[in-house]
């Protein structure tokens, strides 16, 4: 069996089902709506596994599933040297979201990483602690800011409602995903002009074929033809 991990709920699941459906592979939830069991029609040898999108990178890396649909941001954040453990099969063209750095609109002096760095230095001198950036993408953000040579900041973990952290004074800036930027604006924030960390979209990943059985390889070949990838 070739196990295919798909997000278990919401728009990401529906869009994924649609994307496969348009290519002649029908994915559906089996049983009641609350059950996380799935079925696949249109191809033999593929098993649907419904999972939280955030767990799919780990399941791929562990080899418990051979294919999986998740955001490219999650794979980059959760897997060390992701290119070595998984391959991109198809960029699916939905679920687009940008991982960006945003600061209060009131910071009229801050538009670039260069500004952020200078503001962080002054902030630390005034307040006695580093400028806090709230995020759940610790590795991606840290790596990005390190490359850019930004100093005097600290990452604060925020697993939800990240846009509100600045107003609540638990952070001075945020790094989060946004698709339209509307929530950011509504919360008095603006995006740094060179603060784009990663443009994410839903992506079909697979593991390295080295560990696959002959049957899994054959199934994958058939699937590739159906999907046109």
């Amino acid at each position, binding site marked *: 069996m070739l196990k295919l991990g798909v997000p278990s709920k919401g728009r990401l699941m529906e869009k994924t089902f649609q994307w496969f459906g348009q290519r002649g592979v029908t994915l559906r939830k089996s049983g009641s709506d609350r059950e996380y069991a799935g079925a696949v029609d249109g191809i033999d040898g593929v098993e649907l596994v419904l999972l939280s999108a955030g767990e799919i990178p780990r399941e791929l890396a562990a080899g418990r599933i051979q294919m999986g649909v998740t955001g490219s941001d999650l794979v980059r954040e959760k897997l060390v040297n992701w290119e070595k453990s998984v391959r991109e099969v198809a960029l699916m063209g939905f679920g687009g979201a940008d991982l960006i750095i945003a600061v209060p609109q009131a910071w*009229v*002096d801050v538009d670039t990483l260069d500004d952020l760095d200078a*503001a962080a230095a*002054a902030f630390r001198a*005034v307040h006695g602690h580093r400028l806090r950036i709230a995020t759940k993408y610790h590795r991606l953000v840290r790596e990005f800011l*390190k490359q850019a040579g930004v100093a005097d900041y*600290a990452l604060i973990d925020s697993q939800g409602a990240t846009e509100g952290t600045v107003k609540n004074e638990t*952070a001075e800036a945020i790094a989060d995903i946004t698709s339209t930027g509307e929530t950011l604006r509504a919360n008095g924030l603006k995006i740094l002009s060179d603060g784009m960390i990663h443009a994410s979209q839903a992506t079909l990943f697979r593991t390295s074929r080295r560990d696959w059985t002959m049957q899994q390889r054959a199934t994958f070949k058939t699937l590739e033809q159906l999907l046109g990838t």
Partner: protein
Amino acid sequence: MTLAATLTEADRLRDFFAARDAVVVQTDVLQSADTLLDLYGEDIRGRSYLTADPIRGEMVLRPDFTVPVVQMHMQSHADPARYTYAGKVFRKQDSDPDRANEFVQVGYEVFDGVNPALADAEVFAAIRDALGDVPLRAATGDIGILMAAVSGLRTSQARKDALARHIWRPRRFRNLLDRFGGRTAVPPSRAALLAASDPFAGAGADMGKRSRLEVERRIEALRADAATAPISGEELALLDTLTGLRETSDHVLSQLRDIAVDMPAIGPAVTRLNARLDALEDYGVDVSKLEFEGSYGRTSLEYYDGFVFGFYAADDPTLPPVATGGRYDALTARLGEGVAVPAVGGVIRPDLLLQLRGDI
């Protein structure tokens, strides 16, 4: 078996330093994370194992010995003082999973303010002697020279401070230098901000801990910077020469003397280099074969601020350095709340040394 051999070798190295009058010290494996995070911020968070203790708060598996040894020394006030230690340190290897995430280090640290050049040479020679006759390549540098060059630039103090802050981040240092030297254009958003009659028009409500006053102060700083003349092409070229130096130490010394004619601020640092090379010769180091790199040590943690050195496997460039070290006066100043103690030290990886000797 391998770990046992490594620990035996670590003991041998530690005894070797102890025989040179170093006091053997121990530190806790679990360290309070506050000090390290305050010193190194996210760099150390990305590289260390952090854990939470319900009473002591955030703790870290020691990523090195230097900070706890400095803290220990600051309480004892012994002067001069020499310490040695051996034990495991722990580092996440995020980008290179093939590197060890826990390994044994043996260190030798000298706190002696009387003759820094001599102390530098003493530590280098002690590490070299401990390493024995394994074929190694030594690399050296001196971050103090670049710091002196920055402090002597004919430009505003704000620019010098900004550059000094980024000596350990070569890319941002380069970006800043390009901008201060007029080699890159002012970002459009900044030009627009400075041209605006009311910079706060349409700015939105004040929010968060960074106040309107802080924003205004930064705008003032940007205005002052815009009115500052670019750093001269001559000075930029001298800095390029300094950071690009890559020669044997004796040649570097004569080049630096030439540069010091146009950049007198580096004079004292060059004098110190000269004294260090003399002291190294007294320890039997052939400085006409000792490599010196102008940018050596700039990508390590913000730590060393003077002499820096490393010993590398002569025929395996992929191996991490077998030994590294340097001077860290500024670190002692920050840990001692302003009271600096001149300090220089180095660490050896006994496992790599054994590997190169072919013993494991």
